[in-house]
């Protein structure tokens, strides 16, 4: 029988999972990443499940860059997990392996059950300790605060893209991503979005 081929042999492929709560803007984040990948000349395929996003559900995007044809990421096979909400990041840990880099916003958006006292939100310190102990690296910070600092809470997605690019895990340069922000997000928000990206990039370095 032949080789014990491992998927790591295919170094060209990067698998990124983005999880968010409906309305947090992760679909735009995926779109901007896709456009930046085109600028970088990197093949990209994306798949999203957004069944009832407008009604408070979870939105999950899979982004595969490189030569692979699949646009779906199996459990344990994400190279990067980008979480827009801490409990959703924790919930998506099944997508990770010991080599996964995890980036998460730390500002909670408690599910309704928790908001009305019928569920317990995970302890944020324990959450970070758990993720840090099980994965290669955790970058965790309050991205909502930085989005507000940039001028619009809706720029949360751009803050997180900044932190994502700072990890240098993707074959995309910050300049390519900024170009995608300039051309693919609303013109009147471009400055806020670019500032948000820079703040996220800096936060990723410090976290």
């Amino acid at each position, binding site marked *: *029988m*032949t080789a014990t081929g*491992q998927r790591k*042999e295919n170094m060209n492929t990067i698998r990124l999972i983005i999880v968010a709560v409906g309305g947090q803007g992760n679909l735009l984040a995926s779109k901007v990443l896709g456009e930046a990948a085109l600028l970088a000349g990197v093949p990209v395929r994306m798949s999203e499940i957004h069944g009832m996003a407008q009604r408070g*559900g979870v939105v999950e995007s899979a982004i595969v860059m490189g030569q692979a044809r*699949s646009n779906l990421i*199996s459990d344990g096979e994400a190279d990067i997990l980008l979480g827009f909400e801490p409990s959703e990041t924790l919930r998506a840990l099944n997508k990770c*392996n010991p080599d996964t880099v995890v980036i998460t916003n730390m500002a909670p958006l408690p*599910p309704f059950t928790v908001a009305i006292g019928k569920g317990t939100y995970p302890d944020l310190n324990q959450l970070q300790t758990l993720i840090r102990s099980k994965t290669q690296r955790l970058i965790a910070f309050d991205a909502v605060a930085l989005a507000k600092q940039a001028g619009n809470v809706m720029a949360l997605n751009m803050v997180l893209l900044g932190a994502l690019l700072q990890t240098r895990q993707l074959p995309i340069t910050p300049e390519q991503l900024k170009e995608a922000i300039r051309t693919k997000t609303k013109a009147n928000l471009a400055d806020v979005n670019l500032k948000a990206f820079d703040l996220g990039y800096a936060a990723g370095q410090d976290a």
Partner: protein
Amino acid sequence: MHKLLADEPGAKILMLGNEAIARGAVEAGVAFATTYPGTPSSEISLNLFQISQQSDLYFEYSTNEKVALEVAAGAANAGVRTMCMMKHVGMNVAADPLMTLAYVGVKGGLVILTADDPNMFSSQNEQDNRYYAKMSGLPMLEPSSVAEALEMVRHAFDLSEELREPVILRTTTRINHSSAFVELGTLGQRTTSGVFKKDPLSYVTVPAVSRKLHVKLLENLAKAARISETTPFNHVSGSGTWGVVCNGVSHNYISDAVQELGIADRVRILRIGMSNPLPADLIKAFLKECDKVLVVEEGEPFMEEAVKALAQEAALTLPIHGKGEDLFSRLYEFDPAMVRRVLAAYFSVAYTPPAKIDLADIPEIPARPPNLCAGCSHRATYYAVKKAAKGMDTIYATDIGCYTLGFLPPLSMGDFVICMGSSVSSACGFSRATDQKVVAFIGDSTFFHSGITGLINAVHNNHNFTLVILDNGITAMTGHQPHPGVDMAAMQMEGYHRVSIEAVVRALGVGHITLVKPFKVKKSITAIEEALAYKGVSVIISQEICTLYARSLKMPRQRPFQVSERCKNHRDCINELGCPAFYLDANRVRIDANACVGCAVCAQVCPENAIVRVKE
């Protein structure tokens, strides 16, 4: 200009699978399109609807899928290139015209799109619609990627005209809701008007005609089978003796897996893109080159059974497997790791799955189920019905839409649903077969889709239940598509007639009809009590616009509410309504002013009158 009308051949655009399908239709010169919206197909029709407002493409949201296909059949038989889109279960509704339209055939190209939903991300079942192609005798194409979806739609119109039969294009959610860069082709010319030439002995399917038409269908099918042998959509790659037959997204997973397992030189892959009729000679020739074959297909063993039968015809005895224990499941969707694992095990390739992490010590994470929106009128109606039916032994037959979510606590209003329109008809059965109080719930769009016939049945057979029509003025669940009862003027659309639900219900002879405004809680409860007391069929029409739709129309927003100091923490608001605008802060109920739309329902529910409107 709509981005899918860009006349830039060669440009690469990031597209959703559904956008690529719409673009493919436009490149093919589609001139007529019909649909009933359903996830995961909805964005195809949404894009064509938008394009129709900027071009001479005719597009309509039809009343249901049967109507949509019949409208399409008329247009296509007048010689106009036509597309008809639906979700997989919509094909069940359209199955009646489908079966005999296959006998009659078409003159202009007709492409019927079925969007299947393995894993049921937004559906009530995961039926495999390849069997509709088999049952109707129509050609079926299945893409493996977003780019191929565009190419196949374009080709499907040519194929349809060549065979003079409708062509079915089958996608799955992972095609519809995937994105990739796709190269634009040339925009097609639209021929928007045709002529129907009388030929009753070809078009009027009385038995004597249909006996001839069935012969013609089988001849067309034989011709399609010859095309299937040579179409580039059925292709073989690799030269090994381990055979893999696959289709759709499974082809992607297999292509990656043979690379990752380092067995590309040992595997021969047959990708089926035209799945009906299957290429019998191509498959037999493929089998002769193999020692052992694995069939990789989501859903049912559609290809597996055919491949085994063909092996028997060719007197081949090699092992052929697909579904089974330790192999592939008929359940849910596939993923790359699952396909890699089964492929490795089947061909005895040594393989260690990548290290997983231990999740045993992860604390329980509170679920985030979808919920009726803050200020959703359905919540108010459910609350009123629940109060009016207090103490009764009830059965709540519900239906398909946002309002299905009412089955969740704390409302818990929903006991039975199987398909579009089933609320009304199943209520007929429940009320006749039990002594329980039966209340049926149906949305406005679903009422037009298939609730009316059930209501006629209920009146005629003198059943005894209350039907609540939840009229929020739009098809909300699938993204705010119009239906026959919608005010098209509010959408700045002209040339439509609005059909009144109330007038329809009155015309059917329903004995007790009441219109309620669900945000007026007491009045609604009283009206529903009277309807429940009525012997026979009573109808409540509960009218209030969908709060998300109202926002998209930029309708003026009411001032939000807040909880005042009078609150004694009864928490009826949370425990009985459960509006997501509520939250607890230091054990006190608060209202998120950004989420609250000012519907005032909670203010009427509070026993202390402690919930008051925020002052300006």
